[in-house]
């Protein structure tokens, strides 16, 4: 009996200790949702769609894009701009785009699986996903041409797609445009987007992006002896929808901001950022932005120090105020002094470039900040500090805020000015002709804002100008630093002649630069005209192969079906 009690005690007490444990081996996350039970409510679809907004282009990414082109010279000369780069194992755009494609497709696929009663409630988010997916494929198309189309959420067994070949350029374009048409069908008009949802993709943003894509590919084909007309028609139709909708207007507040209206347009903030107290709420030009906020999400804007220099080629694009190029206009004051070339020009010239020996304000250092109590005081003088502020003599302050951080101008992903430029270019390229009425509907609005006379067919012919050149000039100036120039040269197929030209700075010989003692101790290589050469033509190359970037080589090693772009093998 005593023995039995003893054993019972053993078992009992052992059991008590062991039973203090509570967890089995079947544990699930305590602070996260499981994917299997997510995607049930419209709110969850919205939360999932929100991630795509965080991946929009911003100030730094598009500045980097323009350094590839002929209008900027970066301090450490860009090997993309000078064509000396070679295929590399990895490419950030390739991987980030396919990641975006996976997650946009995820939402689209989940949208097909949900109960029918919420299908209509989530259709907006499916539309957003298609918009962002088209954006990702368009980025791939611009850089690489035809790429593999992945039209489902891949798992590891999908070897046919994982290790499949590239699709043709045409197939990719069709796929993008199909997504855009679907998106436009599902997205709401801007006026129908509720207050707390402002900033989400609108139908107008859909039309604008579609127009951008159609113009890109339409002209790409046209200048490669293929038929681009159907695409140009799409570009005209889609940009026309935005223009006729009347939802957006160009920002022009010269009434309160004077000649600096255009400059302050790009740095409107929530906090005070200009003498007229205009805020981000006072512009109606931006169609789709990457949104920033001083408290929630401050913007990062490339600092002034180390910013790439603007080339002479870009500075010379600005027309004189009579609408004529500098080589034709009697109003051009020449380059005798360091600032004479800034006289009588397109208003945008002094709104984008800092005129030498004029005052400017910056976000850093503090003494350069604007003091709104005394707005004309302080700041600094742009003193043409070669080797520090500029290497060309030209200096840009587009997008630079004048106030201390945290600042938060929005970054324009799509704005009306571009849509107007698309309309004009597509109209012209469609029939090699554009009517004065269409010019008035589109780029003349930009020219008026820039203090220029309207462009007409008569003005072009009477002054020996070229309509295409003028349309392209307008585009290059207006969209400076917004990441278009390099792609434009490629689709126009002019990169092979434009890109190999030397990157130049100001005219030195015979001007104040050569005679003024301030610069007597510096010397530059000069061309035969006496202009500063930052990178000579013999160090720059752009051949047929450079129209497409090489496919990242590691991806080819992983999947030999993925063929390299021509010339990069």
């Amino acid at each position, binding site marked *: 009996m005593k023995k039995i009690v003893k054993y019972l005690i053993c078992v009992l007490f052992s059991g008590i200790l062991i039973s203090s444990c509570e967890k089995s081996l079947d544990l699930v996350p305590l602070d*996260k949702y499981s994917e299997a039970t997510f995607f049930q409510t419209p709110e969850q679809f919205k939360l*999932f769609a929100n991630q795509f907004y965080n991946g929009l282009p911003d100030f730094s990414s598009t500045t980097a894009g323009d350094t590839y082109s002929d209008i900027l010279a970066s301090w450490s000369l860009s090997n993309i701009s000078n064509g000396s780069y070679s295929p590399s194992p990895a490419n950030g755009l390739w991987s980030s785009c396919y990641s975006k494609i996976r997650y946009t497709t995820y939402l689209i696929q989940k949208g097909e699986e949900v109960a029918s009663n919420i299908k209509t409630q989530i259709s907006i988010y499916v539309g957003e996903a298609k918009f962002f997916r088209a954006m990702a494929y368009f980025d791939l198309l611009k850089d690489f041409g035809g790429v593999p189309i992945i039209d489902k959420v891949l798992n590891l067994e999908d070897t046919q797609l994982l290790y499949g070949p590239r699709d043709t350029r045409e197939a990719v374009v069709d796929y993008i445009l199909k997504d855009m048409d679907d998106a436009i069908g599902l997205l709401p008009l801007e006026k129908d987007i509720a207050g707390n949802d402002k900033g989400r993709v609108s139908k107008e943003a859909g039309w604008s992006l579609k127009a951008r894509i159609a113009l890109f590919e339409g002209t790409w084909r046209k200048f490669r002896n293929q038929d681009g007309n159907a695409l140009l028609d799409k570009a005209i139709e889609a940009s026309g929808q935005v223009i006729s909708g009347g939802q957006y207007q160009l920002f022009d507040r010269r009434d309160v901001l004077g000649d600096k209206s255009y400059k302050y347009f790009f740095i409107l903030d929530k906090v005070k950022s200009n003498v007229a107290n205009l805020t981000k709420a006072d512009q109606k030009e931006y169609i789709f932005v990457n949104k920033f906020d001083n408290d929630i999400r401050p913007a990062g804007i490339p*600092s002034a120090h180390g910013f790439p220099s603007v080339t002479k080629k870009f500075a010379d694009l600005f027309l004189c105020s009579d609408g004529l190029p500098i080589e034709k206009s009697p109003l051009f004051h020449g380059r005798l002094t360091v600032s004479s070339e800034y006289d009588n020009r397109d208003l945008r010239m002094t709104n984008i470039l800092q005129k030498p020996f004029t005052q400017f304000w910056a976000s850093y250092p503090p003494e350069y900040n604007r003091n709104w109590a005394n707005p004309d005081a302080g700041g600094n003088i742009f003193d043409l500090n070669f080797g520090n502020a500029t290497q060309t003599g030209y200096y840009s302050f587009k997008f630079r805020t004048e106030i201390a951080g945290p600042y938060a101008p929005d970054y324009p992903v799509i704005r009306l000015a571009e849509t107007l430029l698309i309309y004009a270019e597509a109209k012209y390229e469609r029939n090699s002709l554009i009517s004065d009425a269409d010019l008035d509907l589109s780029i003349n609005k930009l020219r008026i804002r820039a203090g220029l006379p309207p462009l007409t067919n008569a003005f072009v012919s009477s002054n020996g100008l070229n309509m295409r050149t003028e349309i392209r000039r307008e585009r290059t100036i207006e969209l400076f630093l917004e990441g278009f120039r390099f792609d434009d040269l490629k689709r126009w197929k002019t990169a092979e002649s434009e890109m190999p030209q030397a990157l130049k700075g100001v005219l030195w010989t015979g001007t104040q630069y050569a005679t003024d003692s301030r610069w007597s101790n510096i010397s530059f290589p000069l061309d035969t005209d006496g202009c500063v050469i930052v990178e000579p033509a013999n160090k720059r190359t752009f051949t047929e192969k450079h129209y497409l970037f090489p496919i990242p080589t590691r991806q080819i090693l992983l999947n030999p079906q*993925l063929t390299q772009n021509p010339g990069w093998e």
Partner: protein
Amino acid sequence: MAIMSYGSNYNKKISGRFKNDFKVTDFLEVNTNFSFQNQKIIEPTNYSGMQSWQGLLWPCLMPYNKYGHLYNFGSNQNPIGFASESGDVTTLNYRISGLLALVFTPFKDFKLTSEISSNFDISENDWANLGFDMYDENDKYSYNSTNNRNSAGANYRRSRYTVANLYANYEYILLDKHRFNFLAGYSHEENDTRAFSAERRLGLISSEIPTFAMGDSEQQYNGESKADMSLNSAYARVGYDFEHKYLIEGNFRYDGSSKFAKGYKWAPFFGVSGAWVLSNEKFMQKMKNAIDYLKIRSSWGQMGNQASIGLYDFISQVNIGGRYPMGNPLSPVISQSATLGGMSSLTRSWETIETSNIGIDYAGIDSRLSLTLDFFVKNNKNMFFSKEFPQVLGTSAPSINGAHVRTKGWEISIGWKDKVGEFNYFANLNLSNNTNKVVELVETGIPSLGTNGYLQGYPVGSIFGYKFDGFIQNESELSAHTSKFTSGIPNNLKPGDVRYVDMDGDGKLIPQAYQLGPDGKPTVTSGDLVKLGDNGQHYLFGINLGGSWKNIDLSAFFQGVGKWTVYETNDPAVYPFISYYYGEVWTTAKPNSVYPRLTQDGTVLGYDFQVSNAPYKLFNNRYIRLKNLQIGYTLPSIITRKVMLDKVRVYFSGTDLWEANKLPGTYDPEKPFALQATPMPRGYSFGINVTL
């Protein structure tokens, strides 16, 4: 002692332990063990900011300007400000551990043990991140470290860990020769953690009192995370011992983990071992002087591993986070995003590490000499590995049991102790080495420039780089070199830049492995990278020397590595001020310099300093370090007895007092090329041991 000259630097620890075993009845014994620890640390909130800026700053910059203000140059921030002016974080760490074991002995030689132990770890801190102002050399205000967005917050984290263990042990002795030992048991482990944080901006009200309760209620942030895991194991062991000469043992365990998906949670593991104690054999007794103890042993066993993977990887998780300002630009609402975690890992199970070992233990020459020798082969047959898929997948693949890594190694340790007159001394040496190789992989793996993870047929951590071919000395060498290349080298090389060998001779410098096909010619995908070594530490050694003479004792412990391939990771584009560049950079006047020319051109600089076997890039970081040195003096007992003390010893002890190595500069050899780190500390301490 404080390690930093600036800022708060406080660390205090109190701990206690209580252990008691008592017999309750003739068949029940209770063991208890209780301990606590309480630690308080105060240090700068921006410790990492301090570390990184002290690593980034040029040595010529002054800490303060002549007006006594914190100085900054350009956008460089002041590490002293981060140490002393940017607020402190006060961390309290508590640990309470307890163990309760009931040991029943219902009948002779049988023991049933039931034990439970728990650790509670709590770590909480409160911090303030205060902006400090910096000034230029003319005392002009130039920068505030936080742009006046001062903030304060607190973190709380606790972890609860419990182990319950129930096992029975039975020993059976037959005829005093055969000893059997049986053990069987079951254990359960569980752990859960919870953490939350809160933060508010202070700037708008005051930064005088650094508590977030005083912050701006419009600017408050908080977060939470929690997680748990559990492990179950059943295990058994049978041992047999014949006259302490022949020993044999078998064991088995069956482990289950919550980290794997259903159906993959459990795995069995086996092991056997045997030993022969030769010195207990009769025929060895004549050699008793030379051999006190000699044992040959061998084992084969499996072990499970489930560390280094996520807790719930078998579930595809949705994360919520991020801040995007949606809505009206003047009064936006914070919009969070839902994102997917990695792909789920449904079929992954335990890693099985199989180790075979043979070893000898020896002691002899009147116990003056001791020797241990071991050889082992370790096979991790289903190691966690994440296969690389084409990036069109859009995410990375989850890790699977996809690699087989074999490690072979040996270890030897020799000890000698003796005395000469009043001088006692000892010397111990141990030396070990192992090499590994990926013998099987679910993919072949593509070598890339730098350190690689797993590549079939190569050691883990293999380093690939270009083959260095000297500096280009003049224009004719330059054109001779560049004319050989059609791509892969910068278009503006100059004398003073580096030549790398075009291994496959295709006129392109390509960052892919140099590979020969079966025909002895480079393959189509061959590049120019060659294997330069692996990042493992080889020939690790330790030397322990000591002696005493009369009342004085001395001991020293040296530690080191015989072979460790490392490459310089500090880019001169970021760290142009590193002192070992001075006077050692290529110029026409110094063609035999250590380093290539320095240039502002980032493309060329990147090319000159990429991974290769150049003598300025690749190093064997072999080193020896005096880890510890102690000198003691014991007061004569005639004196100490008078004050009723048994023994009083005063000592000096130093840690990391000396080292010899091959790296340039003054890096800590244990952290090669770590620039943004706390500088290598040397420790000195004096102490007294008192025995009552």
